[in-house]
């Protein structure tokens, strides 16, 4: 499995990100970095505690990261949720969380699989 396959599997645009960042190593570095990013957990916690201001900041940050790494699918769900929170529509935002969560875990599992395939 190479990085391109990984991107295809979780719904990202590999050509686009490589075009911008220009080096595969750089893309790989940030994709790995994404595994450690705390914003998804922060988002979930904040939604559970009803801390919507914090939730907005977290999902907004996720959206920004997705833009930079061309995580197309997760970008779409995080963008939709950002807008819902901006409009203070907390119910709509909460309804969107499962989809976002799904898109997020797709990336995480694929990147982990890619990482282990590289190590072998």
């Amino acid at each position, binding site marked *: 499995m190479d990085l391109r396959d990984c991107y295809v599997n979780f719904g990202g645009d590999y050509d686009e990100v490589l075009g*911008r*960042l220009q080096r595969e190593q750089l893309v790989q*570095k940030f994709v790995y970095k994404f595994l450690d990013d705390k914003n998804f957990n922060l988002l979930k916690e904040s939604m559970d505690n009803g801390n919507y201001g914090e939730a907005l*900041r977290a999902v907004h*940050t996720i959206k*920004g*990261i997705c*833009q*930079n790494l061309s995580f197309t699918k997760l970008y779409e769900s995080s963008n939709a949720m950002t807008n819902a929170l901006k409009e203070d529509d907390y119910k709509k935002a909460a309804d969107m969380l499962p989809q976002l969560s799904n898109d997020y875990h797709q990336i995480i599992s694929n990147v982990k699989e890619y990482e282990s395939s590289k190590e072998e």
Partner: protein
Amino acid sequence: MKKQKILIVDDSEMNRSLLVDILEDQYDVVEAENGLEAITILSQHRADFSLLLLDIMMPEMDGFEVLAYINKYHWNDGFAVIMISADDSPANIKRAYDLGAFDYINRPFDSTIVHRRISNTMVLYAKQRHLEKIIVDQFYEQEKNNKLMVSVLSHVVEFRNGESGLHVQHVNTITELLLRKLIQRTDKYPLSINDITLISTASSLHDIGKISISDEILNKPGRLTSEEFEIMKTHSAIGAKMLMDLPVEQKEMPLVKAACEICRWHHERYDGRGYPDGLMGDEIPISAQAVALADVYDALTSERCYKKAFTHSEALKMILEGQCGKFNPILLQCLQEISDTLVRELQTTSLVQGDKNIQGMRNKIDYDRLFANGTDASLSHEQWRRQLIYTDSLTGAYNRRYYDEHFQDTEDTEAVCVIDADNFKRINDQYGHDAGDIALQSIAKTILACVRKTDTVIRYGGDEFVIIFNSIPPNIFREKLEGIRRTVDLLKVHEYPKMEMSVSIGGVYGRGKTRELFKVADSMMYQSKINRNKVTIHFLDVETDKIEKSEEI
């Protein structure tokens, strides 16, 4: 070469390190994870940075707050701010620009584009600062040479005259003090600070005609016979003629024009009993009136080959009693009022000799003429910096920022007017934008010349000006506005003789919040706009604070 330093402010560690990866080869990159941290770094080390990359949505202090803070303390004079938020809604981008952001980089980051945007911005900023420095240096150099030439020329005259060499300097100082006091006392004489600087510089040449008077008469120790005195008297007309004989393009220079008036008429007296033309009252230009008084005062208080020096109070008494001829009563009042300063200043000019004085000139660079504005001629660095920030570079009036920061929320304004140039778009379309600029400049100049030193003229937007008046009687307010309208209507621009200009003016009179007065004045202006070239004023009723009546002039 040392790497330029960039500060990245973003709460997302991933975004920061992505930018670091893109930029670190070429730049020295520092990171801050929220607005507060950025401000802390900048408050100590802002001079090190050439650029700030700023996210908007952050904990502690968001990007807008950071921008507002930077703007408030004018830190962005030294570095540019580029916004990097993922939120690219037009409202946010616009707000960032309004708060002083220089540019906006969209996500996702493309390394080539990020590089280009950043290097272009830094080159532009560096160029601008470099150019500013060149202009200031050149201006200083030119100013120094001008003063040097004038001073050499006047010393030639004095050398022949056997005088101390201080007379010219004294007349210069006294003239400036007199005129500055004069415009505080009355607005009868429409002099700007620039005019006063020009007149006092020109005053150095008041006696150049003496070059044609023979030594025997010029330096005769005793009293002159009446024939000798008649010859002596010719020096004023001769001085003026020497200047009038200059080639036409030099003769038209403001300095030469002022010097010419001063040469010819600095021996005229207010009652018409002076020479050479026997002009009376304000037939004598105010420049020559002031120099005449300064000349007499300094002659009395200095030792000459034919007399001893009088003290300040003796000299003042003699002048007030009319022993040296009649002077403009307002100027005489000014002379009395500047007594203390006069004694102090003249003592210092006597102590400070020649070359020391030229060194001292650096502190006296007349930034007013560089960044034409009517406040104070000798500016400290801080004042000068304030002037750059608050002055509209095209017209020399205050800018919108000055209004927003100083007047928006004040409550003790007495009267406000809004002035809008008529058919300004047509001027631009018909004659081009250069002509439009010249038109705006002439209109601004007219407005500045028509108002008092205490009134504030602001270029509010494109072709719109605002004047804030402090304590002004209603009839004077009306006269001023009408005066501005009339003067602009008669304005002619040398380069575009066919160009016609006029303004529509709306005024409001009565105490209140500036913000509210402005609204009323603005709607009055629109009323004037219906027929153009018109003044409309609302007088607020003091009791009910409501608009009682409006009148059209």
